């Protein structure tokens, strides 16, 4: 009979194979990054363009421009675009972040040449037809109104506003009146400025061939990177330390709690240690917040803490949805856990567990070309090198309980944070 009481011997991940991008120099000077793997006959091609929501006062402008790229060009109708992409089993996704727009194509290798001309056409020649605009706008407006019924969305928007200010490009949420202020001309102008002449950065993963690279270069390489991005002021002053903001919602059975504040950028030397401290606090299923507030008290289905970083600001946040009747208790327990991080040294057993768990996550981050290309994109868009991951791994292996306490003392004071509670009333 096996010994069921003792865990079988296991190894700690001590190194990982960093699957890196190959940078290709094309005749047209297009930035193409590649991840080659044999036998993966579906190719993923990402086109990344600096056309995010921060570049216009009305965040809907960037959003709708991106969403309507495939709604018509000078030579193709919306229906033709959908047909040409989908007929060959390809899939096109259009996404928008604060700084970048992401146009992602999944296509069978054998049909890539069918989809590329369509992508080129929408990037250069999208023409935002009136009829399609009204349809997309109504659909987005309905989604917006649904989101006004969700405590998670209400709290998230308010949190950003309280961190950066209601008019700041990172704080500005979509408002009902924004829908009245956009029209096809504003979208066309936005497209003209940010898409038409911009040279996309391209990441390709799968069993591509040289022919595919040349094909991409010929379609996108001769776009001229002419326009200068507008100067945007990203300054902000956060003055809401220690405040609690209530957004009551009638008949809500749960509250969303978001607690946090603007903090350091990815390039700051504390960023990685703070990430590790946040992992212990609320970054994984075995975290302190999860163990206390879910697994011991049953106040929530899930609670998380984490750092995120835009180009010009980092954020720390803790987020949970809890029953109306236990919201206050949950907040109290969150405070308790933050204090514990600041006052007590993390025990060796817990620190080793987090070390082991996070070390293995480096294997996952580079497991296959699709994962590795995501890891690379994160570096590329933050102007970081692969040494970031090497450095991260090294810090992870060496960080001490004292350093974690010190970092927590610096960054985890509840007095630094604003608390947004959507759902229950004060």
């Amino acid at each position: 009979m096996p010994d069921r009481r003792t865990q079988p011997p296991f190894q700690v991940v001590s190194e990982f194979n960093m699957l890196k991008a190959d940078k290709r120099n094309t005749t047209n000077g297009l930035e193409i990054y590649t991840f080659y793997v044999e036998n993966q006959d579906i190719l993923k091609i990402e086109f990344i363009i600096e056309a995010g929501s921060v570049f216009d006062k009305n965040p809907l402008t960037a959003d709708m421009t991106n969403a309507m790229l495939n709604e018509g060009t000078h030579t193709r109708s919306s229906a033709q675009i959908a047909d040409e992409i989908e007929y060959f089993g390809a899939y096109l996704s259009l996404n928008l972040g604060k700084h970048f727009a992401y146009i992602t194509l999944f296509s069978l290798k054998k049909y890539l040449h069918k989809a590329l001309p369509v992508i080129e056409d929408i990037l250069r020649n999208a023409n935002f037809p009136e009829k399609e605009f009204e349809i997309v706008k109504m659909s987005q407006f309905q989604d917006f109104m649904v989101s006004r019924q969700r405590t998670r969305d209400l709290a998230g928007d308010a949190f950003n506003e309280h961190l950066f200010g209601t008019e700041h490009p990172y704080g500005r949420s979509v408002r009902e009146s924004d829908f009245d202020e956009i029209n096809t001309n504003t979208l066309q102008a936005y497209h003209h400025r940010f898409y038409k002449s911009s040279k996309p950065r391209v990441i390709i993963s799968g069993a591509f061939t040289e022919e595919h690279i040349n094909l991409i270069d010929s379609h996108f390489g001769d776009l001229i990177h002419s326009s200068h991005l507008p100067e945007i002021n990203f300054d902000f002053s956060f003055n809401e330390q220690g405040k609690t903001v209530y957004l009551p919602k009638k008949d809500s059975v749960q509250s969303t709690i978001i607690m946090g504040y603007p903090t350091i950028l990815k390039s700051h030397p504390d960023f990685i240690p703070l990430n590790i401290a946040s992992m212990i606090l609320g970054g994984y299923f075995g975290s302190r917040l999860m163990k206390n507030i879910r697994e011991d008290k049953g106040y929530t289905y899930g609670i998380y803490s984490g750092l995120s970083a835009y180009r010009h600001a980092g954020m720390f946040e803790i987020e949970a949805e809890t029953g109306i009747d236990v919201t206050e208790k949950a907040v109290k327990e969150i405070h308790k856990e933050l204090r514990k991080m600041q006052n007590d040294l993390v025990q060796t057993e817990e620190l080793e567990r987090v070390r082991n768990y996070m070390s293995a996550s480096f294997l996952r981050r580079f497991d296959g070309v699709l994962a590795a290309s995501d890891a690379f994109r994160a570096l590329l868009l933050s102007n970081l090198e692969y040494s970031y991951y090497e450095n991260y791994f090294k810090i992870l292996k060496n960080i001490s309980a004292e350093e974690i306490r010190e970092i927590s003392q610096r960054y985890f004071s509840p007095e630094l944070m604003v608390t947004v509670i959507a759902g229950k009333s004060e």
Partner: protein
Amino acid sequence: MLQFDKFVLDNGLKVLVHSDTTTPMVTVNLLYDVGARDEHPERTGFAHLFEHLMFGGSINIPEFDTPLQNAGGTNNAFTNNDFTNYYISLPKENLETAFWLESDRMLSLAFTEKSLEVQRQVVIEEFKQRYLNQPYGDLWLLLRPLAYTVHPYSWATIGKDISHIEQATMQEVKDFFYAHYAPNNCIMVVAGNTDFDTVKTLAQKWFGSIESRKIKPRIYSKEPLQTQSRSLHVKRDVPTNAYHRAYHACSRTDIDFHATDLLSDILSLGESARLHQRLVKDQEIFTDIDAYITGSIEENLFVFSGKLADDVDFETAEAALLSEIDTICKTPPTDDEVQKVKNIWESKFVFNETNALNKAMSLAYFELIGDAKDYNTELSKYQNLKPIDIQNIAKKIFRPENSSTLYYEANQNEL
């Protein structure tokens, strides 16, 4: 082509192995043949509550997650109406930890009162978060009992009502475990950087001594043939009217399944599909319209779900949709439409195989409904279909008396 090997332990545990040495990880997936359909009608939501308890410690191991995290592993699980699926992913060197953990909780849980009390609360919060505190969150709590009158598919996996979760007792938890959790009611798939002999040795070592159990037979009524259309009209504090119409359709193992699936794709897969093009773009009746099958093992529902455009009433929306349904019943789809959805299926299959967990779950699922080998011929079953097959299925399913309609109306005030 997904390569795998299979063996069966004496206690009935089926084990499938798929080797892929390009990854440093290995995935261990255990599918138990128990889902919400196996619940007592007065204890709905129990299979899902039970899934939570599977993480509350087993007979020899007080905590499930901690040792797994030490070994660099992640895990999760889900329950649906048909089955419950657990998976672990960890570095290949630490595969044995997964066998140790999974075999101990198959042997027996710890059955602590604390775990039951806490997970009961967690599941109640999950119920609120996903079904009550969400606009349109109660859709399936309404549509299922409308379409199914006697079959256990009439309740959602989360359960009919929070009170069922509140009333669950420890004795019921134990009875459920011994009636459904057993090697002979489980399919295990190991996929990733490992090999057949390693898995066979580990399976024998950790699972070999667990005795097979008497599985509670499924005794419930088949859903009778629906002979009259049904409808339900509700008003909620949501911004937009939503329309749902469900027809009874065939089971997963029925010869008609693939044509039924393609029928839903012809109607609504992607933006080029006819419902989007005609009802959203041309006629501006809906802002969003989808056709899909529920994907259950026994008799499915073929569902249309749409959000109405502003200023369009239910009557107009329904007439427009019924006209599209009528069209597909009278005229087969074009060759191009059929070729397109076949191409999309080809992409889906290729994409599915880029991920070890997807591969493991696919093999387990196909083994459950028949034979894992069928995964490799599945794509051809779609590719062999002809336009006339799609039309024939449409005629078979889309009979008015076979339908259940939910009018989900937005309250005009309150917003």
